[in-house]
Structure formats: C-alpha cells, structure tokens
C-alpha cells in the first residue's frame, strides 16, 4: 500500500533506515543479548537455580526468565535510541532530518519506533533462547505485549534524552552503567520483593523497573509482587511524562541546534 501522507512517508523512512541498520549489524544488536542471556539462564537458572526453592510456586528458572527478557528489552531499546541518535548527532547526519519538513513529533516517533522494534526483536530472540533451558507458560499475551511495548517505548524515550545531552561517547555509557544496570538488577528480576526485609521491600517500591518486570512476569506466570493496575499505571504515567519532555526539548532543538 502506497503511503500518501508526507509525514507518514518520513516516519516510515526513519523506521526503515533504523531497522535495516539493526538487522545489517545483527552481530552487534541481536546476538549479544542472546549470548548474555544464555549465560544467565545456564548459570543462574540451571546451575544455581536448581539449588533454590520455588518462588510463587514456580521453579526458579521459570521465575527469572520473564525478568531477564525484560532486562534485555530495557537495555536494548535504550541503547538503540541512545546510540543511533548520538551517532547521528556526532556524524552530523541528524542534519538530514533537521533540515527536512518533518515535524518534531514524527521525528521522535521515528526514533522511538526503532527502539521499540529493537526491544521486541530482542525479546523474541531471548525468549527463543530461554526455551532451550525451560518451558514457558503464557497467562496473557495482551499483558506480555502491553508491558513489553510500554517498557521499550519508555526506555527508547529515555535513551533519546540521554543522547540529546550527551557530549561524548562516554556520556552515553554513564546512565546505562551507573543507573540502568543497578536499577534493573534490583528490580525484582532474581527475587520476589516479598523475600526482602521490610525496609528494602519498601525501598524497592520506588524502583520503576520493578513494575515493568512484574507486569511482564504476570503475563507469563500470572503472579506479581505489585498490583497489575499499579504497574501499568506507573509505566503509563512515566511514558507520557517522558514523551512530553522529549517533544518539548525536540521542538526547541535542545542539544541539537546551537
């Protein structure tokens, strides 16, 4: 079907370019999460997990798989936009878009869609790898899809904010290393927060990643440490705030134009 709206054509062009790029360099985009997660599944799931008691009635490996898939989705959707946008800024190829008549919201949508596609492709790859280690049950496809979509959308937006203000390649690694990784590890991937002392359980409730991991896990296992509506509420509000922030700064050209 031929696209008629010029804005839709521009948006499609951006997404196509990004998806072609991520598939062309699949060894750098899709293979690493497959290898890393295979190691997690083998070491934490199979070797150590076999010594750990079941959580919420599920074997340990089955409990951690959704969280690990979500960890890969978060990291990859974030890294996709932070890298593709920062690289475009650094190479000045972003000027190709900046001089064009594409409105800011369409440009943001183009970059974010690339991140969402990367998040979903990563999820599919990691889930496929997990099947070599355990069986998966599906409680609700809609919840799995919804949680993965909102999470990858949100982290693609956060990646854009990071790239907008990054002035060097070091700056695009600071947030993933010192913020994203600790929050992800402490976001209930490897344990239920009900197993924590009360103080740390309450602290954990301030970690937004906890809600994403639990919503996603609920889609597979039907169990969650937090109410599902609260989890989707947190993701929804954060996504709307991040989208508004990115749009505002994009329309002003912050970090892009002098």
């Amino acid at each position: 079907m031929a696209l008629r709206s010029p804005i839709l054509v521009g948006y499609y062009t951006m997404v196509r370019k990004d998806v072609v790029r991520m598939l062309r360099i699949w060894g750098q985009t899709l293979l690493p999460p497959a290898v890393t997660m295979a190691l997690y599944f083998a070491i934490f799931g199979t070797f150590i997990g076999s010594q750990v008691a079941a959580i919420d009635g599920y074997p340990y490996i089955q409990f951690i798989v959704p969280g690990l898939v979500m960890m890969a989705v978060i990291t990859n959707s974030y890294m996709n936009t932070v890298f593709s946008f920062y690289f475009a800024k650094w190479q000045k190829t972003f000027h190709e878009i900046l001089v064009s008549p594409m409105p800011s919201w369409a440009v943001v949508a183009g970059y974010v869609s690339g991140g969402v596609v990367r998040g979903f492709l990563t999820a599919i790859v990691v889930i496929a790898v997990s099947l070599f280690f355990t069986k998966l049950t599906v409680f609700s496809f809609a919840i799995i899809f919804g949680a993965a979509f909102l999470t990858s959308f949100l982290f693609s937006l956060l990646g854009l904010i990071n790239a907008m203000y990054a002035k060097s390649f070091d700056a695009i690694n600071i947030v993933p290393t010192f913020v994203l990784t600790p929050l992800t590890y402490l976001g209930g991937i490897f344990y239920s927060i009900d197993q924590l002392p009360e103080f740390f359980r309450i602290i954990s409730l301030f970690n937004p990643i906890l809600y994403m991991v639990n919503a996603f896990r609920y889609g597979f296992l039907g169990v969650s440490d937090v109410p599902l509506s609260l989890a989707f509420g947190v993701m929804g509000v954060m996504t709307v705030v991040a989208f508004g922030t990115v749009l505002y700064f994009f329309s002003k050209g912050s970090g892009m134009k002098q």
Partner: protein
Amino acid sequence: MAENIPAVRIDGLKKTYAASNKQPPVEALKGVSLTITQGEFLALLGPNGAGKTTMIGIIAGLVNKTEGKVEVQGVDATANPDKAKSFIGVVPQEMNFDIFEKVFEIVVTQAGYYGISRTEAIPKAEQLLKDLGLWEKKDTQAQFLSGGMKRRLLIARALVHEPKILLLDEPTAGVDVELRRGMWDFLRKLSSEGTTIVLTTHYLEEAELLADRVAIINHGIIIEEGTVKELITKLNYVTLLLDTVEPVKDATLVLLREMNVKKIDQDTLELTLSPGQTVNEAIRKIAATGIQIANVRNAGSRLEEIFINLTKK
C-alpha cells in the same frame, strides 16, 4: 506562488552563540537584513568567521536565531518552520551523510524525509546521480568516495525533493579545477531553470562568474551588496596596469599627483579610477604629461580587490 514574493527575506537577523568552554559569547550576526528574489543567484562572500554559515544555518533550520525574522517563499520560518523548510535544499560545508550508507540509499532516504515515497524517489535519485556523474558509484558506501564525489553527493541529496531554493555552503571547497568548473555548469543550468541559489564561497572568481548579485558579510553584518558591476562602480575599485613605452621619471609622476597613479616598476604604472572618471579621461591626462602608453591591462581579480578592501576594515 506569486512572482513578487521574495524567495528569502531576512530582517534584522541576530545570532549570539552562548559562552562555552570558558569562551565568551560570540555575536555571529549583528542584525542582517537581506532580500533574495525568485530565481536569483546570490553569492555570499566573507572571510572565515564572518557569519556566512550561521546565516545559511538559520535559513535552513539548523541554527536557532536570537532575534529577527526569516521568511521563505513568504512563509514565516519561526511560525511555520516545517513548511518553510520544504522549499529549501541544503548543501552543507561539512560532509554530513552516513558514511556507511550506500550512495543511492542516501539520496532516496533524504527524499523520504521530505515525504517522497521510495517509488517516486528512485527515478529522481537515478536521474540526479547520472547528472552529477555518480551513477557508477550508486552502490558504493559513501566513505569510499573521493572528496569531489562526496561534494556532488551532497548536491544530489539536496536536490532530490526539487527545492525552489538551494543553499550551498562553500560547495567547491577542496574540489579540483575541472570538477569545480563542472559544478559551475551544473549550478548555472539549475539557475537557468528557475531555482533560487544562495552560495557562500571563498572563491571570488566563482562569485563573479556565477552570481547575479553579491553580498559581502564581515563581523556579522552585510557591508556591501549589489551586482559585481554595481560594486565596482560604487566602490571605485577599477584598477588598470599601464605599460609605458619608456621608463617613467618621478618628476613626470608628480604632475599626476591628483590622480591615483602608482609606479609599479620603471615602465609600469598602476591606475585606479576615481569616482565617475572614465578610462578615456584618465589616459588623456596621463598622455598629456608626455607618457606614452604601450599597453593597458586589467590589474587582476576586480572582485578580490573589493573584497580585500572591504573586509580589512
């Protein structure tokens, strides 16, 4: 679009770059006003740091203005930037395409950003790459092109959406003479087809040969504008070299002290015409002193002289 609407109208344009890295703020444009008519070929001349790239950047939407107004085809570039940008094609000074992308894909992708579907863009890209001698390289990654080819790729990319206005920021910098002349022919053809062209350049010959009008910018203000002929007349920088039959005595030269005549060597004089003075009249006065003139030559690049005189102030 009515013929009488200017292609570009700039009014009181100012730009101050914020202080950074312990450097003070830089006032790059101090209130530039300029009107470029439909189909005009304007050359923007100025030394490094004069404000040329900033001006092009603001018109193209790459740089935020501090103050002033820019209209493109009658559209306010602040109120309706997306519409204004749709009329413009930009050839930047620096190579800013994805060096890992193939030549053909760069041009087709750019068309997409302007709302042209791949089906429509493919024949346009093919024609442009053929016109610019890049068709053989269509499947080559941009990083493997020569400097001249990269410049031509920038032009192809800027033209794929058939803009009414083409902004070129030093497009022939670092291009060899043969290629430069080829590019000039291409730009002349484009201009004759009605495209409005704004070109910044360091090559004064380029401005003199191509442009209908020249604007000279220095320290963020336009210090002179007009056709090359107008500038020469207005600024009185017609300079001629006169070869004399015999060596000129200093005593004879004293008789010409009211005229702008300098002795270059024993038998060569440099004559700069004063306002309103004709060549005939000047030569008659010189001949009246007994000096016999064997030959009259142009003193060199006229525009260059104007440029140097204006920008050294």
